[in-house]
């Protein structure tokens, strides 16, 4: 695609309480993370679009620690990061059967 958007936000910026949104979802946390950063150094050098495109803000760069923190507990398992990480630097698996997200409506 040859699309060039100029970061075209038109609507006035809205403040979103993502915590409140995520709070509506039912999760059963897996015992071990199903998402892993393959190489933190790659993230350090990256523009990290995952911090914006992830619908659950799973990825947050910890500047102080110099590492990407992965809040896998809130993952909606949509798979966007699996496809959209510019460096395929995310080891993406399904959470253990029965764990992870379980919607109430869907």
């Amino acid at each position, binding site marked *: 695609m040859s699309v060039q958007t100029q970061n075209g936000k038109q609507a006035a910026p809205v403040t979103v309480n993502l915590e409140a949104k995520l709070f509506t979802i039912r999760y059963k946390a897996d015992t071990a993370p199903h998402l892993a950063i393959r190489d933190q150094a790659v993230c350090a050098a990256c523009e990290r679009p995952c911090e914006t495109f992830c619908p659950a803000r799973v990825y947050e760069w910890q500047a102080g*620690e110099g590492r990407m923190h992965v809040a896998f*507990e809130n993952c909606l398992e949509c798979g966007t990061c699996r496809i959209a990480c510019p460096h395929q630097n995310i080891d993406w698996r399904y959470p253990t059967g029965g764990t992870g997200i379980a919607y109430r409506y869907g």
Partner: protein
Amino acid sequence: MAKGKAQEVQVPTDHEGVLIIVEQHGGQAKSVSWQLLGQGRRIADKLGTRLMALVMGHQVEEVAQEAIAYGADVVYLADDPVLEQYRTQPYAHTAVEVIREAKPEICLVGATYTGRDLAGAIATLVETGLTADCTQIDVEPPPSRLLLASRPAMGEKLMATILCKQRRPQMATARPGVFEALPKDPSRQGELVRVPVTIREEEIAARVLEFIRDPNRVNLEDAPVIVAGGMGMGGPEGFEMLRELARLLGGEVGATRPAVDAGWIDRAHQIGQTGQTVRPKLYIACGISGAVQHVVGMEGSQVIVAINQDPDAPIFQVADYRIVGDVHQIVPALIEEARRRALVGEEAVARG
């Protein structure tokens, strides 16, 4: 709890008075017992009846005297070597004999591990209704004299008042820390009734081999105070401060998953979706941003204090008291203040 309407059957009228079963270990009564005597006094007065206490143990006459000082009119004292240590069988056996003799209309027990163990056995033996873990206890005035035992239900989301209309005594266990004890009055007069213990050691199978007191055990579930830290603590040293504050306040240390993952503290301290869910009386969140996976594990806390440098941190949305500042300055100040006020947290009520 049964649902639906029970038929109105005649209430037994030969039972009267309120009986509190006092829990003691090694001659030291649990404060919940005095709290229940306080509440028992209030409802006994409302019913115009007497307040009784049952003290079981070995060489515990002092506890019986104390029960009078805390409001009992009559104290039944079962003092015998077989009651030296708590065991279900001799305690339940003795308590049932006293209940059959004293015929109280209401019998209250502290909702401690021991209290719940005992109350379940007693209620089955006397075939009566028992409401567990109450947080509100009241009575309807005469003539109905019904005990209104209210307790959280459905994962603490609902409150329900449970009634026991046809059987006596009406039994309930009540949580520590929800009722107020009366001031201790050593000059108070009361009747002491010694009751014979009819069960013999040979009839008892259970032996308490040892009691391992473990102050290092992480007991987030029962802790009245939790001082929890997140990434804002900056490292394991940060958690040393929290340990000190928790010790002074009589609580435990909690942590977020990132802090645990960073290896700053053991996983046993983890609170939230991947850790434990807690609901202490006081929760102090230090350097915790308040991501939803943490908040779900602590939002039920009674009072929440949040300390964070970022005024927009989501943790502030659930906090009663917000402190915007550096944990490395605020926490030492809190420690200093707790010391200055000489708070003593070790006798925490919720621990019995």
